[in-house]
């Protein structure tokens, strides 16, 4: 399913079900390979994407993921945007704490995936939902 994708364009994937989370992982992996990320960095960014896509599904009530190859001078990278129009995150500081969970998870989704990527931005509000942008650069 990842064959023949045009990596010059942002790749979009909606997140409505479990299977979509798997699709997000496969998409991110394909883009990470194309951006020449090392094996460990590929694994890190795919894991982060898996955590965040699951958050989008479970806490955001579904949403969309967009994966783009970005370039910064000599380095390439993968940028992923997770957007949902769910209830937003009431206490961001608390949500970013290791071990905190409002659902039934391990509470590592947000805090853990932040450690796995190089850049991590989060915008959240009750009206518009949550939008998380992460970037992983090749070394």
């Amino acid at each position, binding site marked *: 399913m990842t064959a023949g994708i045009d990596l010059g364009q942002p790749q979009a994937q909606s997140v409505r079900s*479990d*299977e979509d*989370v*798997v699709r997000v*992982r*496969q998409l991110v*992996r394909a883009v990470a390979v194309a951006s020449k990320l090392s*094996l*460990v960095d*590929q*694994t*890190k960014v*795919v*894991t982060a994407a*898996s*955590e965040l896509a*699951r958050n989008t599904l479970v806490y955001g009530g579904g949403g969309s993921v967009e994966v783009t190859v970005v370039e910064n001078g000599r380095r390439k990278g993968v940028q992923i945007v997770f957007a949902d129009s769910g209830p937003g995150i009431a206490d961001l500081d608390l949500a970013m704490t*290791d071990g905190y969970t409002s659902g039934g*998870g*391990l509470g*590592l*989704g947000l*805090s*853990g*995936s932040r*450690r*796995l990527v190089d850049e991590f931005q989060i915008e959240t509000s009750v009206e518009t939902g949550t939008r998380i942008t992460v970037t992983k650069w090749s070394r």
Partner: protein
Amino acid sequence: MERVPILKIGDILLVSIQLDMSDQTAVQLQEDLAERIVATGCHGVIIDITALDIVDSFVGRMLSTIASISKVLDAETVVVGMRPAVAITLVELGLSLNGIRTALNVERGMELIAAAHADELDYQLDDDPDAETATP
């Protein structure tokens, strides 16, 4: 939905996860395995994750739960074949897989289960017999 096959080899149940599991498949595996442990009366479970290119917190939690469930059902669980990149990522993610025994490959995993089982049959207070276990 796809299902992960469970093989019985002697006194051991072998689960080799070969696909990128959806969360539902993972939960299904957890249930299937509990049933098979009871049905077969096996004392060891080996979960081979050589083919998994990532383990996220959901799969990590599933592995922990399987280990706990099998312990209650008097079976030892060993997770084998974790790739280096996966291990490094789990450390960074902050997932410690507490309570799970690990081994490098299926063969070492079987040794571990055999040793644990032998200990139970012939218990003795000697030097730490669990030297090969991975969890503190």
